[in-house]
């Protein structure tokens, strides 16, 4: 069964709203990095954060004490519904499913909660913080805002989890009792995450992210949310969501990506939205693209927007849909001209583009893909 994208919402460090963020990407802009620190260490990291102004106007009693990750999700989800022309009160709450894609979850509140336990003792632990540490808190808040009473799922995984959520949406929408599925990917950054990825040698201390570089200089973490409304009709069709799989070690990354891309690339592909982020993922994707779809353009938005992990897959889907819709690709930033791929190094018209692949490779062993088309 083919699903279509009926609406999209986007909250990023480069702004909020699909059209606004897209225009800035086309102009070659990138998010501004800010530094993030922790009180018990001098070490600081650079991150791309969502400006507070991006969330103004988002208010609901459930969001009063909610973490940033929940507010990003709510903002993106409401945008997506609005762009699909859906009014909250006119929808049957049982006929909308909600699927969330998350990686690290409400890490800021989780850290604060555990900080109280470690620093002061269990008796100091706040009962107000604990519920916000649970992975499905953001989904719960959005379900309450929308009044959804049917299926609500939160999926956890790495940067490929957004595409896994699309596969699950296809499975749910096979049930004709559903009209729509709202899929939301969301993530927030914290010093602790930066430190963890740095210890894993995946993080760069400061921008830029240099995609497809053989040196694997590392990524910059970012935050925000992406949301899409899936329906049976819409402006772009998801022809196939590939459930992908996992790689046991990094050396196997290329093998699984090739399998996914070979499965999806049986039709002519005009461009690929890659997940290259300055890490080991890049070389695996580069080899895969060169071998399987050498004539397709390859674009990655991560140098401009950062690595948003749980939100990243949804961001990639939005990028693919926007490129198909607007018939142009933004420039890939900070890419070396000698990279043996067809990269749009400047704003590039693609007037005949009909079909795109989203390839998503996470840092914790998961990979997935999907193929999208526009009439």
């Amino acid at each position, binding site marked *: 069964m083919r699903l279509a994208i009926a609406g999209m919402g986007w909250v990023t460090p480069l702004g909020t709203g699909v059209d606004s963020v897209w225009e800035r990407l086309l102009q070659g802009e990138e998010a501004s990095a800010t530094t993030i620190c922790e009180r*018990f*260490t001098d070490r600081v990291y650079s991150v791309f954060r969502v400006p507070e102004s991006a969330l103004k106007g988002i208010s609901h009693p459930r969001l009063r004490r909610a973490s940033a990750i929940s507010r990003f999700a709510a903002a993106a989800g409401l945008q997506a519904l609005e762009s699909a022309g859906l009014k909250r009160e006119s929808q049957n709450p049982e006929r909308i499913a*909600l699927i969330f894609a*998350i990686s690290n*979850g409400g890490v800021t509140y*989780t850290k604060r*909660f*555990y*900080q109280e*336990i*470690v*620093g002061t*003792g*269990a008796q100091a*632990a*706040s*009962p107000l913080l*604990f*519920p916000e*540490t*649970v*992975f*499905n*808190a953001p989904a*719960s*808040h959005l*379900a*309450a805002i929308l*009044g*959804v*009473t*049917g*299926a*609500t*799922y*939160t*999926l*956890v*995984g*790495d940067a490929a989890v957004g595409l*896994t959520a699309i*596969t*699950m949406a296809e*499975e749910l929408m*096979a*049930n*004709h009792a559903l009209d729509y599925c709202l899929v939301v990917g969301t993530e927030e950054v914290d010093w*602790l995450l930066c*430190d*963890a990825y740095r*210890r*894993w040698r995946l993080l760069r201390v400061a921008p830029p992210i240099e995609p497809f570089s053989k040196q694997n200089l590392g990524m910059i973490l970012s935050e925000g949310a992406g949301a899409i409304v899936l329906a049976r009709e819409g402006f772009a069709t998801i022809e196939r969501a590939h*459930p992908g*799989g*996992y790689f*046991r070690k990094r050396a196997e990354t290329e093998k699984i990506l090739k399998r996914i891309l070979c499965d999806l690339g049986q039709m002519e592909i005009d461009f690929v939205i890659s997940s290259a982020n300055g890490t080991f993922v890049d070389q695996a994707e580069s080899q895969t693209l060169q071998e399987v779809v050498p004539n397709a353009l390859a674009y990655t938005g991560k140098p401009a927007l950062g690595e948003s992990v749980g939100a990243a897959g949804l961001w990639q889907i939005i990028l693919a849909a926007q490129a198909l819709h607007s018939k142009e690709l933004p420039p890939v930033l900070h890419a070396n001209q000698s990279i043996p791929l067809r990269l749009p190094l400047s704003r590039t018209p693609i007037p005949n583009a009909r079909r795109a692949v989203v390839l998503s490779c996470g840092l*914790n*062993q*998961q990979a*997935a893909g999907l193929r999208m088309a526009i009439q």
Partner: protein
Amino acid sequence: MNNPARVAVTAAGVISPLGFGLAETLEALRSARDCVTPVMRFSVTQCRCKTAGQVSDSRLLASHLQILRPGRLHRASHMMIQALQELMTQQPEFEPELTVVGTTSGGMSYGERYYRSLYGAGGLRHAPTWIANYPAQKPVIDAQTAFGISAPCQVIANACASGTNAIGHAFECVRSGRYRSVLAGGYDALAEMVFVGFDSLQASTPEKCRPFDRHRSGMVLGEGAAVFSLENLDLARARGAPVLAEIIGYGISTDNFHITQPEPSGIGARQAMERALESARIAAADVDYVNAHGTATVFNDATEGKAISALFNGVPVSSTKSMMGHSLGAAGAIEAAVCLLALQHQFLPANINFTAADEDVDLNIVANEARPAAVSMALSNSFGFGGANASLIMRKLEA
């Protein structure tokens, strides 16, 4: 859905405070054993609750499997590996096309170690190992790797409903014909942060866990893992696979009352059960046993009790959490294994520590002792934070 496929459970594996494997679990259930013990894994001196259902490390970490660097894996990974080992012993050729599991915290205690080392300037030599094994999806990937399974994984984190949601979604994937075989289940290991979290909410009890009792005062936590091979029934029979039970219905609902409390009327729980009955195309009167979510908190048991008594007329009900604690993301999967054993061995598992009926909850509680009974259909409930509600119905299949 026209001509939906029937869905068989062809193998299962379980590890919980009740025991390692289905046989030990059955023995503990039949003897209505209290497997809740004092917590020694981390300090609970400042907590109200000081007990939990716990899996013994000495047996857990003594796996004979050839696993790469087993010392680095999280306890949740070891639980999943042992549960999957039991399943694979029954079905060595099982090759799922998809894996759907539930969890709430994955390798949380490794995250705690990392934070404590950072905060206290402790040794961070093992930090890369902790970080690599912390992600919620890692235990299922480790278990699949141990047995050469390469299916893509969907890891559901719907709080305490996760395990039932995972099996339910897997069931729907096979029933729709999209997949022929799916591995489903759940896992969670005890973690200090979660333990203190429930304690801070005063949801856990310093006393015995007494689900549905007039004097109930809260839950105790648990841990474990359980997995099931779900297959198209016709295909399973065609290849001569044993069929342990059939999954016939799944219901999911979301109530939007409060992030930690169920809607007081029990509408969310009731909708999940009604949808499961509708999905199974059976009447409430066809159900012979309800394995309740039954956390023993005042709110849960009151609302769940109302919903069960409104739908079912005197069906036997027990919460097996009274014996092993609440294993969160694993609970729905472990309790599905309990239902499987009840169907296979024709008995009603007990709701232990039961002293007096709650006047406000009209239920037929299987109090304190397991008892023989004809059980053809069993319904299992799981309800979680965020208003996540799920119900699953299993049926005994005659040979």
